[in-house]
C-alpha cells in the first residue's frame, strides 16, 4: 500500500523520530543530571565534564535507597505472586465454568476498575489503622492486591475464554478434575497472558505512589517512589543526587520493560484493541 512518495515517507519517518526524541529527552535529562557532581546545579542537557557515578552510591547508602528498594521489591513481588495466583483462580472459574450469579459477580469485579483510589483511600486509611497495620508492608500489599485482582480476574477470564471449548471437553472426558484441568491444561495454555499480567502488575506496584504515601510512614517501609519524594525533601537543592535516586527508582521497571516489552505492549494494546 505504498502510495506515499519517497519524500512523504522521509517526512513521516522524520516526524516519528522527532516524537520519539521528545518522548525521551526528559528521561535523558534525568540520566545526565544524575552524573553531575553532587551539590551542583545542572542547568542544561550538556554532559558534565566529570561523570559523578558516585552519586548513585551515595543515594543508595546515605540516601536509604537500599531500604526503599528493598521495600519496593518485597511489596511488588508479593503483590505479583498473590494477585496473579488469585486472578488465575478467579479468571479460571469465570472463564470456564457455568454457575449461578457469575454475571453479577463478574460485574462486581469490573466495578473495581472504575473505583478510583481516591474514593476509598480515606476509609482505607482508618480501617488499616484500626487493624494496627499502618506503616507495614502487609497493608500496602493487601490494598494493592485488591486493586490488581479486579483487573487480573478480567484479564485471565478473557484469556481462558479464548480457549476452544473442545479442549476443556476433551479434558473432562479424559477424566481430569477441575483443579487438574486448570493446572495441566489451562495454565500452560494461558501462560502468555499470565506473564503479561505479572509484568503489568509488577509495574503498577513498583510505580505506586499515592498508596505508599498514605499507608507507610517510616523509612524502613517506604517504597521507592515515596522514598524518592522523602529523599528530595531532605536534599532539596542537590539536584544530581535526587536525579541519581530517581534513576535507581526507575531502573527495575525499565529493565522489566526492555526484557519483556512484548508482553508489556501486548498487554496494554490487546486489552485496549481487542479485535
Amino acid at each position: 500500500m505504498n502510495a506515499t512518495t519517497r519524500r512523504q515517507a522521509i517526512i513521516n519517518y522524520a516526524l516519528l523520530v522527532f516524537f520519539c526524541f521528545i518522548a525521551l529527552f526528559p528521561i535523558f535529562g534525568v540520566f545526565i543530571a544524575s552524573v553531575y557532581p553532587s551539590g551542583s546545579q545542572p542547568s542544561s542537557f550538556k554532559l558534565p565534564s566529570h561523570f559523578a557515578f558516585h552519586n548513585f552510591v551515595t543515594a543508595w547508602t546515605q540516601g536509604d535507597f537500599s531500604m526503599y528498594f528493598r521495600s519496593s521489591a518485597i511489596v511488588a513481588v508479593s503483590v505479583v505472586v498473590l494477585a496473579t495466583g488469585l486472578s488465575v483462580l478467579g479468571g479460571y472459574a469465570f472463564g470456564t465454568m457455568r454457575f449461578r450469579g457469575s454475571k453479577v459477580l463478574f460485574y462486581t469485579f469490573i466495578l473495581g476498575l472504575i473505583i478510583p483510589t481516591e474514593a476509598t483511600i480515606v476509609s482505607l486509611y482508618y480501617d488499616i489503622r484500626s487493624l494496627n497495620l499502618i506503616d507495614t508492608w502487609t497493608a500496602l500489599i493487601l490494598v494493592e492486591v485488591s486493586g490488581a485482582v479486579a483487573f487480573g480476574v478480567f484479564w485471565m477470564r478473557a484469556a481462558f475464554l479464548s480457549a476452544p471449548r473442545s479442549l476443556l471437553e476433551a479434558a473432562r472426558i479424559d477424566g481430569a478434575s477441575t483443579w487438574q484441568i486448570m493446572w495441566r491444561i489451562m495454565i500452560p495454555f494461558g501462560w502468555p497472558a499470565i506473564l503479561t499480567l505479572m509484568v503489568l502488575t509488577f509495574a503498577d506496584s513498583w510505580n505506586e505512589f499515592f498508596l505508599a504515601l498514605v499507608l507507610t510512614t517510616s523509612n524502613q517501609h517506604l517504597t521507592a517512589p515515596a522514598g524518592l519524594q522523602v529523599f528530595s525533601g531532605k536534599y532539596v537543592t542537590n539536584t544530581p543526587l535526587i536525579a541519581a535516586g530517581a534513576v535507581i527508582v526507575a531502573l527495575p521497571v525499565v529493565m522489566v520493560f526492555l526484557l519483556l516489552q512484548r508482553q508489556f505492549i501486548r498487554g496494554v494494546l490487546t486489552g485496549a484493541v481487542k479485535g
Partner: protein
Amino acid sequence: MATVEFRKVTKHFDEVSALSEFSLDIHDGEFMVFVGPSGSGKTTALRLVAGLEAITSGEILIGEREVNRVAPRDRDIAMVFQDYALYPQMTVEQNMAFGLKMRKTPKAEIARRVQETAATLGIEELLQRKPRALSGGQRQRAALGRAMVRQPEVFLMDEPLSNLDAKLRVQTRSEIKQLHKQVGNTTVYVTHDQVEAMTMGDRVAVMSEGVLAQVGDARSVYEEPANVFVAGFIGSPSMAFVTMNVTRADGTAILSRGEVRLETAARVLLPDEVIVGVRPEHARIWHEGADLVGPVNGTVEYVEMLGRETLIGVGLPGGARLVAQAAPDLLIDVGGSVAIGIEPGRMYLFDPATERSMGRL
C-alpha cells in the same frame, strides 16, 4: 455389552428444540453414523451421549446403564473432536497418556498401551512432537490415538474428517473403517457428508431438524428411503422431485404434469397428487424399444460433463426438473428438447401431505 440406547431423548436450548423424541438402539460393536445437514441434531445427539450437554427429557443408556446424570469421565467413552482438541503444550505421547494418567493407570501399563496404539496408527515417530509441529492428518491420528488408547466401551467421533483435504479424507476414511474391523468397539460417528455415511456405516441414521428421519443400512436407506428428506439427502447427485397429478383408469395409473403423461401399472392406492422422485442414475435418454417408462418430454436446461458421465437437467412444465444421466460422449444443446425414460420400478412415490414414502413404481 457396549450398546447405546436413546429413549425418546429431547434436548432444548432455550426455546430452540435441537432434538425431539429421538429414539434409537445402537448394537454392540456397531459402527453407527449419524448423518444430516447442519441443525439436524446429529452433533447434539452425540454430545448427549458424551455427557457434554444435559438432557432435557428422555433417557440415554450406555451398556444398559442409564447415564443421564453421569459425568463424562465415568461413562467409559472416548471422543474425537472436529478440531482434534489436542492439548497444545503436551507432546503426542503425553496427550495420549493423559486420560490414563487421570485414571491412575500404572506407568508401565500406560507406556505399553501408548506404544501399541501408536504402532497401530503408525505414529510412533510423532510421539515426542507437539501438536503445532504436526500436519492436519497427523493431528487427526493423534486425536484418534488419544481416544483409542483408553479402550473405552464407546467411541464418539464428531466430524473428524471435515478438516482434512479431500484426498486425505478418502484415505483416512477407509483407515478408520479398517481400525473398526480390527478393534471392534461400538462407534457413533457424526458427519454431514452422506458419502462418508454410506461408505463407513454399518447402519446410517439420517437426521433432519432434530428428528430421526430413517435408520437402516446403506442399501436400505438408498433403495428404500422412508421419506422425501432421506430420498433427497442420500445419493449424489441427488434425487429430483416432480409433483404430478394422478388419474386412474382400471388397473393403470396415469401420472401427468402439463403435457407429460406416464402410464404405469398401479398396485398402490394413490391420492390425487403425488411427488415423484427419480434418481439421475435411473433416468436416461429415451429410445423406443428400451425397457423404460416414458417418454418424458422437456427442454434441456443444463448439461454437466463430468467425464465419467454427463448429467442433463431437463426442465418440465411448471418449473419442475428431472436430472438424467447420459453417456459421456453425448452431444446435446441447452435449450433443445429432449425425451427422458425412467427405469421401471425406479419412480419413488411420496405422499405430498406427509412426504412419506408410498413405495415405487
